[in-house]
């Protein structure tokens, strides 16, 4: 019985340790998949703020910034006008993701909502710039 329990717990541990940290996720290989993931993270951040779950906002926000950073090297292939908007927008996604984290820690709804508005606008610019290139 004990041996069985030990095996079960060991198996659980293996599964747990194999799970990556919540903030990281595999980056999809194609731009459309990345854009779809970005839209999802945007909705998740919005829903967490609406639900008052401020301390969890950082998870989808950081996932979105990692996805946006993955797009940064690809911005050079965009048409000039799309590139002009994409590069600074990606930078803003990163900056506002970190601000969402900071305001989430502080439990500051008002600042979180302002940061989310800027974050969502930057995400929308990134999506528009890259979606037009598909």
């Amino acid at each position, binding site marked *: 019985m004990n041996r069985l329990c030990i095996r079960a717990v060991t198996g659980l541990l293996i599964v747990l340790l194999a799970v990556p940290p*919540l903030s990281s996720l595999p980056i999809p290989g194609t731009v459309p998949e990345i854009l779809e993931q970005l839209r999802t993270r945007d909705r998740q951040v919005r829903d967490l703020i609406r639900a008052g779950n401020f301390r969890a906002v950082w998870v989808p926000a950081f996932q979105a910034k990692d996805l946006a950073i993955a797009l940064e090297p690809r911005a050079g292939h965009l048409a000039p006008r799309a590139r002009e908007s994409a590069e600074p927008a990606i930078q803003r996604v990163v900056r506002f993701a970190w601000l969402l984290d900071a305001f989430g820690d502080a439990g500051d709804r008002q600042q979180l909502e302002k940061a989310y508005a800027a974050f969502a606008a930057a995400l929308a610019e990134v999506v528009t710039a890259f979606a037009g290139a598909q």
Partner: protein
Amino acid sequence: MARVSPALTAAVAVAVIALASTRSDAHKPVTSPYTFAEDVLPIVREKCGACHTAGGVAPMSLLTHAGAVPWGESIRAELMTGHMPPWQVDGPSWRFRNVRGLTARELDVLLTWTKGGTPPGKAGAAAALPVDNRWPLGAPDAVLPMPSSVTLPATAQDRIEELTLRTPFDRARLLRAVDLLPGTPAIVRSATISVRATAGPANAQDTLALWVPGDPPVPLAAGAGFLLPAGADLIVRIRYLKTWEYEHREMSDRSSVGLYFADEPAETVRALGLQRGTTVIGEPVRALAVYPDPALATAHVRAVATRPDGSREELIAFRPRPGWARRYWFAEPVALPRGTRIEVTGTPDAELLPPGALPQPPADLSTVRLTLDVVPWS
């Protein structure tokens, strides 16, 4: 009562700890995958090292792990607010010759490192690099030292000094660049070098250089030059500022101005002032650079040109920072035909300040003024 084996107890305890550390508290891990030596130092050396180095004008060196770690919170606040680096533009940096902002990845590396335990990395403590106090463009064609040293007594923290330099040239010269070499880099915070115009064409650009540390001069391309009339005086206005390291110490400086002559013939660079609102271009010009009124700060400023053919081009969108007025050189000259309308807007910069960030002074929109450096375009 059934006996529970020690092995099972230990296994369950480990599982509980693992659960608690990975899933139950949805909060960030505290270990940065980025280290100072491998990831942070290459970024700060390139993007911050001109000021944030031993003997530099910034209040701390970021080029050693020991120097950077105590400032982690401040670094994070400055980066999150966008206060540093001090000359980021809202658009892409490659539209300008001298804007070296952080990429998104670089920004994330620095923020992750400051939040994630500031690990040193394998290289350990690097040697502190002294400030690189040389002429970035090489030896000037003429060097004009300040007539005498300026001394900040131990009781003074901040001072603006205006000095006059007589130029020794018996004929007008055209200059491709003007630079300042601080005598004591640790206290020279900014400088404006202008020419006291006595002759020359109307609107000849008299602001020859807006010097801030870490912003090497950009020479004008062939075919253009700043006019320096024969025997003209240069007005050098230097702002001195002591950081906490030099408080209560007497400090002296004797800086020098370097002049780089342009190949002649060349067009004289002229100043085209832009107020908030719309300015109509009277003669066709090519714009080479743009700079804000030195008093302009904490506003979001945007200048957009609309040509007579309907084409629109954003000249610049940025948030000038107090004390960091400098020229933004266009990567390519911007053609502005006669009749082009340039609209300049300025709005108060509604900052989002994370805990620990220092607010900027309130915006004074009456100072929303820009100047274009232009040459005739035919």
